[in-house]
């Protein structure tokens, strides 16, 4: 009995001594941390994706408080996160629209012509360096998943040989844009739903020979557009998002299905 008592007293005494030492140490060596850093840290997405350009979420939170990073610098946190951080910092947040990554290629199996069957190391960057890539089109999504491997949010999957992005999960961190050897992924405002899903700027004959969904620069969309939002330069259509009303008339007439109306937002055409 006395042995147990002795042990309990001893351990208790050691605990008290250590507790006192720790209390003293924490007072003596106290580092003042701006409490806003903690609060900002709680509002960011916490994926440590690095898209803000700072070393992880902690680095970003510290930078925001120091005024080195913008309050809406954490793209994954979205508008809500930015608003919360702005509130903590006592700033206004600019009403920037949410961005999403979109794949500007529809060259899936059977659509884009294949140059050869690639059976090597599963990396787009490697395949792109071998005889110009496995697809004949030099702008095409190679479909081996370099973007998927670098997506911290699991938003990208490979379907029929091209990348497909789940826009709900996409946090617009830009990792996929950076790692696509073809530059086939772009960050676009989510409302810009009518887009040319092709980047082929070759002449019509060449473009058509390599992919049946390639933009051939036929200008039908340009003629169809009532709002003069479309220009065709270098054999390739461009839509001006400022003028586009998302009516989708161009997508309906495109002979190659190169223009798509991703998530049709009913926008009333502003007749002038």
């Amino acid at each position, binding site marked *: 009995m006395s042995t147990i008592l002795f042990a309990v007293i001893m351990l208790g005494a050691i605990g008290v001594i250590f507790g006192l030492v720790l209390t003293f140490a924490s007072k003596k060596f106290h580092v003042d941390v701006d409490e806003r850093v903690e609060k900002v840290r709680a509002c960011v997405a916490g994926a440590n994706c690095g898209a803000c350009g700072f070393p992880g979420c902690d680095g970003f939170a510290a930078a925001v408080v120091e005024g080195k990073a913008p309050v809406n610098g954490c793209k994954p946190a979205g508008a809500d996160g930015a608003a919360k951080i702005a509130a903590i910092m006592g700033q206004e947040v600019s009403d920037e629209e949410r961005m999403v990554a979109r794949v500007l290629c529809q060259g899936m199996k059977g659509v884009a012509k294949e*140059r*050869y069957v690639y*059976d*090597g*190391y599963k*990396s787009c*960057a*490697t395949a*792109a*360096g*071998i*005889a*110009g*890539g*496995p697809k004949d089109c030099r702008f095409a999504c190679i479909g081996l998943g370099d973007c998927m491997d670098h997506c911290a949010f699991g938003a990208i999957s490979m379907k029929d040989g091209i990348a497909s992005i789940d826009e709900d999960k996409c946090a617009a961190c830009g990792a996929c844009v950076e790692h696509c050897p073809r530059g086939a992924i772009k960050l676009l405002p989510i409302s810009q739903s009518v887009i040319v899903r092709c980047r082929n700027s070759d002449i019509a004959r060449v473009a058509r020979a390599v992919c049946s969904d390639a933009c051939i620069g036929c200008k039908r969309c340009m003629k169809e557009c009532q709002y003069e939002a479309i220009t065709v330069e270098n054999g390739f259509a461009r839509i001006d998002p400022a003028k586009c009303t998302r009516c989708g008339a161009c997508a309906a007439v495109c002979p190659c299905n190169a223009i798509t109306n991703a998530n049709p937002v009913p926008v009333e055409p502003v007749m002038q």
Partner: protein
Amino acid sequence: MKATFHGGVHPAHSSKHATSSLPVRDFVSDTVQLVMNMNIGAPSAPCVKKGDHVLMGQVIGEPVGPLGVPVHASVSGEVVSVEPLPYLGEVPPMCVTIRNDFQDEWVELNPLGSVEKVDPALIIPAIKAAGITGMGGASFPTHVKLSLRPDQKCDYIIANGAECETHLTCDHRLMLEHSVRVVDGLRAAMRALNVKEGIIAIEDNKPDAIEAMTAAAKDRTGVRVQVLKTKYPQGGEKQLIEAVTGRQVPSGGLPIQCGCVVLNVATCAAIADAVIDGRPLVTRLCTVTGHVRQPANLRLRIGTITNDIIGECGGYEDEPGKIFFGGAMTGLCLPNDTMPTSKSTGGIVVFSKAEARSMEEGPCIRCGKCSEVCPMGLNPYMIKAAADADDLEKAKKLNVMDCTVCGSCSFICPARRWLTASFKIAKSNIMQQAKKAKEAAAK
């Protein structure tokens, strides 16, 4: 004593049996397509236009930049097109296509005569004018390799006749059929650099070549034959130097830093042609083997289309799975059979569908075989982990830049990990990063 290096593997040498006893025969096709980026460095600039009549050996591509080499017409005839065409790299290089008139009219040549009597100062310019690049596969311009800075000293020139790659036998046949030319070329290089010792290194699986080269080297100043153990990658520049001289090339360094220059035996023969006859590099020996009906050793005009070569060898045995330029270990896989050969194409190997199938990658079991066989003394399994995690800094610390991409680790790995492939990517990523950093620093 048979010399060798540490590490290495033994891929099936039986792959050479199909062609090792076949004498070289000529094959000339009706068109050749000469790509302008046959050398490391900037591609040459085409200096002919469509419709021009060119003579054999005429310069059709002017050298560009410090590593530039000229490209010569390998047949006489009419230039059909000068345009960028898809080739093995990412960007289609300029190609000059010539329709052969089968006259083989040579341009005026400038022979310098016997290699023992020629003015040594004329040798390197002759090599440059002949457009010679390393014919073992790396395509490094030979005149650059032989142009030493004043502070560099060369003790040995090694003629590389190891031919450790699987399937290939063209260097073997060259040493048998043109032994004297190889020795002449080696002597020319030795005289150009004033080197006292020239060594012809041959693996012991080619006893007839050893005999022929020993006979050819007899009575020649400073030339001897060194027999090597048969092991892959015995013909790798750094491995060869270690085996022959016992010296090691410093990490990230060049052979000249340990006083050696290594030339492939085919390069030596090309040097002899350039000096003795003044002939530019327009033909080369090439082994065509694997799943073709009649495997052969051919003397090809540079720029011959693969399809024509396969036709000459009786066509495919069955539907081809993969076609390589080079051997099975380091060869480059072709996207299709319309690609032309280049100055460094020593072999065309055809794999059947069954042989070509890729293996599923398994998890690393830490058996350490890759570290055992790595001829550069690296730890491939550790580098692979770093490369897979995109941790380039760690890969660099593990000396991935010293990897010679020989493929020994991938060959031996029981889990069939894609080791070499990921090192190749890691190396190119590191180089790109360095380039970007340099550009940023320049700004």
